[in-house]
């Protein structure tokens, strides 16, 4: 198109007939800014509609024969919004007068149209069009196949050779061992090929003429020698192979883990923790399995196949043809059946996992089951699932059995042919008995590896897809922790300045719209607002877990993006509502904030956090293990250990995120005390749902609709009778309702 000036994900390629309609609908010198396809017609059928946006107008063009291009001049657009429907959505272009124009799309395109709506909004406001450079891919760019996950790896297009080379690269440090391994494998395969040749001589030169006893001794000794040699090579290969395979995957695994630690948080937001963990465990496991068993298997069998075929052809090419007769059937059969086989096993494992999850659920929920006296029903449900597992396992086992018998049956066909035609040749004196026997031995050696043809492909694909997923993480850009231009800030004052800061996790839904705030060193700020209003988001920006979309965030007058990340995070301390402790002793957890802290320092921090008393009261004192995630301690105990950890860390900027909620009054008082000690001399940002706990803050900042609505002390805001006042009133009402219901009254809420 001659007037196409922009490129990118929002300039999709337009089909010629739509292009013709487009030319008719706008002057040719008017540049197109957005050009995207929607996949539903107005009657919700799967038909294409094109949305074309220029600086002057918006056009909705149907792609099938129907005409009826809808035009909305840009100055006529009053509002643009998307409506989420079940399984799709609708883009609404509201006009200043008359009916709005609509565009319907399925869920597949909803993310795209959220961006498009934002783009049109920018244009209507006269701003420059700023659309993301990239959108998550849903189709494989190579084969156009729909991807199993967004931005995922297309299982069909994994570049096997490249991936293989990259995996092989990890072998480089161990190349001596790897080369030995290859040599041993080749030698082992060769020794496996020789015995039939010897038996052939035994039959032809000793047994048939019934003579040459001394030759028999030598041949028998030769057989024994080969067996011993083969055994030695096999053992050596196994030892080396396991070593190299596990070494390589351990290297990949630890590189992966180290890399993951430095990935920006948004990577973790996008993916489930489970899938990330599975990359370290499952994917590297698959890779390991492939390196240790699959690859050697493939290599030896490949070598074996070539070697045997060569030998067979050499001995008798005519017979070899008969041998090869069932091979296509075997390969085809195993390819076809293998899929069925795998499907049956998948079904079995799916049912098995449902059974075990039911077990898990009903046993952990046994109190509920008993309280509602539903033991019988649980029993019935279990029986059903149990029966399902049994049925699936019968099917799977039977098909497995069938598979092997069918393949064996096919193979025996080759043997029949060889016996018949080979026997005929012997009778005609064209072949010796020994040769025939050797032939038949090779036959079984040849068919063995064919069994696994179906599997090898699967195995490789899975291992390589796993490797690709691993490499994807390894190649992801890490946080700029090592930026050489960053400003070192070993000792910061703690001045935090927000200048017109805007940010949204999803670009379409800004959480913060324009935040302006200047916080002096040592000041305590209480952040107030409804949940989801952006309090935690402000904190995420201060920690630089995310970067602001617009505006500036300054630390001691320096743009946060220019501060050395290590120095920044090193001087920020956090105490959360849910204190995350690592399994280990209490002392270790307190010391986490300052590696190499002395025991004295740890005790001092614990005392300051009002934690010392309860710690020493425990049988193992500071050596008490906290359990996984600290679950052997009570909430208040965990909280105080987290405070001690923060005290020891000695941050200049302190973040208290709901640090005092959900505790009894007694404990809360202790924690309040500890926090009062902690905040002294530090810039503090505190978020608390219970507004009364923010009394000690120098200033309260009320956030509403992405902006700062009110700023002032507790008393000032109360007298102003604005948002804060209303929030306090609501809380008072709620707590009185709780009191009526028999709950604990909050003594601080007045």
């Amino acid at each position, binding site marked *: 198109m001659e007037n196409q000036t922009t490129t990118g994900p929002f300039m999709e390629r337009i089909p010629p007939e739509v292009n013709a309609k487009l030319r008719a609908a706008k002057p040719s010198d008017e540049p197109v800014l957005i050009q995207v396809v929607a996949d539903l017609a107005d009657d919700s059928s799967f038909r294409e509609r094109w949305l074309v946006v220029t600086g002057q107008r918006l056009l909705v063009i149907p792609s099938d024969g129907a005409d009826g291009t809808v035009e909305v001049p840009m100055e006529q657009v009053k509002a643009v919004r998307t409506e989420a429907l079940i399984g799709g959505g609708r883009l609404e272009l509201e006009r200043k007068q008359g009916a709005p124009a609509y565009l319907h799309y*399925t869920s597949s395109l909803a993310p795209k149209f959220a961006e498009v709506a934002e783009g049109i909004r920018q244009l209507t406001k006269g701003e420059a069009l700023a659309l993301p450079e990239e959108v998550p891919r849903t189709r494989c760019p190579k084969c156009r196949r*729909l991807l199993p996950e967004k931005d995922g790896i297309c299982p069909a297009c994994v570049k096997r050779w490249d991936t293989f080379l990259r995996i092989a690269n990890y072998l480089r440090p161990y190349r001596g061992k790897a080369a030995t391994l290859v040599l041993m494998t080749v030698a082992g395969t060769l020794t496996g090929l020789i015995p039939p040749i010897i038996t052939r001589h035994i039959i032809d030169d000793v047994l048939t003429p019934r003579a040459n006893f001394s030759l028999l001794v030598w041949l028998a000794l030769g057989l024994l020698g080969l067996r011993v040699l083969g055994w030695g090579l096999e053992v050596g290969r196994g030892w080396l192979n396991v070593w190299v395979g596990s070494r390589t995957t351990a290297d990949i695994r630890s590189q992966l883990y180290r890399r993951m630690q430095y990935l920006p948080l948004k990577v973790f937001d996008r993916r489930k923790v489970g899938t990330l963990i599975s990359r370290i465990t499952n994917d590297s496991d698959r890779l390991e399995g492939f390196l240790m068993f699959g690859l050697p298997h493939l290599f030896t069998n490949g070598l074996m196949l070539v070697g045997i075929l060569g030998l067979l052809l050499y001995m008798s090419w005519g017979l070899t043809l008969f041998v090869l007769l069932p091979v296509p059937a075997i390969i085809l059969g195993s390819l076809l059946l293998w899929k069925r086989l795998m499907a049956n096993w998948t079904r079995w494992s799916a049912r098995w996992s449902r059974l075990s999850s039911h077990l898990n659920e009903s046993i952990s929920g046994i109190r509920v089951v008993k309280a509602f006296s539903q033991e019988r029903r649980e029993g019935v449900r279990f029986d059903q699932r149990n029966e399902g597992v049994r049925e699936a396992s019968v099917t799977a086992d039977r098909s497995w059995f069938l598979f092997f018998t069918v393949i064996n049956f096919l193979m025996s066909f080759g043997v029949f042919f060889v016996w018949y035609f080979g026997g005929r040749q012997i009778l005609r004196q064209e072949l010796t008995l020994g040769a025939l026997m050797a032939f038949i031995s090779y036959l079984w050696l040849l068919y063995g590896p064919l069994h696994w043809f179906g599997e090898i492909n699967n195995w490789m694909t899975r291992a390589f897809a796993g490797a690709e997923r691993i490499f994807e993480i390894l190649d992801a850009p890490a946080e700029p922790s090592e930026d050489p231009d960053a400003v070192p800030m070993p000792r910061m004052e703690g001045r935090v300045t927000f200048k017109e800061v805007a940010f949204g996790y999803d670009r379409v839904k800004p959480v913060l719209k324009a935040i302006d705030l200047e916080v002096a060193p040592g000041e305590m700020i209480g952040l107030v607002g409804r949940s989801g209003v952006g309090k935690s988001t402000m904190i995420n920006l201060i920690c630089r877990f995310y970067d602001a979309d617009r505006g500036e965030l300054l630390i001691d007058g320096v743009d946060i993006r220019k501060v050395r990340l290590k120095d920044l995070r090193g001087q920020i301390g956090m105490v959360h509502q849910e204190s995350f402790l690592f399994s280990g002793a209490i002392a270790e957890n307190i010391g986490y904030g300052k590696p190499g802290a002395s025991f004295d320092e740890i005790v001092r921090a614990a005392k300051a956090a009002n934690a010392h008393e309860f710690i020493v009261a425990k049988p193992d004192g500071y050596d008490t293990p906290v359990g996984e995630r600290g679950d052997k301690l009570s909430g208040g105990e965990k909280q105080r250990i987290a405070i001690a950890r923060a005290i020891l860390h000695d941050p200049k900027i302190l973040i208290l995120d709901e640090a005092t909620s959900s505790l009894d009054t007694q404990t809360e008082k202790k924690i309040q005390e500890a926090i009062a000690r902690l905040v002294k001399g530090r810039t503090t940002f505190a978020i608390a749902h219970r507004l009364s706990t923010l009394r000690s803050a120098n200033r309260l900042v009320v956030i509403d609709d992405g902006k700062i609505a009110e700023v002032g002390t507790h008393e000032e805001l109360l007298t102003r009778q604005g948002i804060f006042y209303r929030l306090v009133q609501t809380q008072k009402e709620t707590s009185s309702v709780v009191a009526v219901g028999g709950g604990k009254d909050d003594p601080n809420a007045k």
Partner: protein
Amino acid sequence: MASEEKVTQDASPSSENGRPKPTPIEVTHPERVDPKAVRLLREPPWKLRLTIEGDRSYLKVKVVRAAPLSQPSRYVCFLDGKDEVVCMVDDLSDLEAGSRRITLEELDRRYLTSRVERIESIRSDFGVSYWDVQTDRGRREFVVQDVSENAQWLGERRLLLIDVDGNRFEIPDLDALDRRSAKFLESVI
């Protein structure tokens, strides 16, 4: 899968048999209105207005099903602009004809579940299945990851599939499918 649903439904009424009468519990029903008094209007044609006759009126109304999977044709809720429930109508036939028509239109517009009429092909590899189906809305290809998790039995022979993007495909009756389609389906379910 289908059968376990049945048990949950069967079990609750049978366990009620021997019990004493339930203790009455006080619930307020601000949304309980006479369905005859509910009027839906398109005024202007692109806006939906809800009037409870002789009482109140709402602009920007959303029509939703309370239980879209198990009770698709009953229990319809009308929400106001803040997504708060204005009223619920248990049985659509209680509505006045014009309002009922509009309600059905709105439900159709909102629930974009496609009904699968024929399965052209299902390919599955690597735990992912690639579907190509003919639906009441036209031909469509989609991907389902882990069918055992993303296929939901809505009844003995009724199946709902959710693809990777969250699109929904319903097979209203497995037995009504032609042989070829049924065979494809059998290979993955």
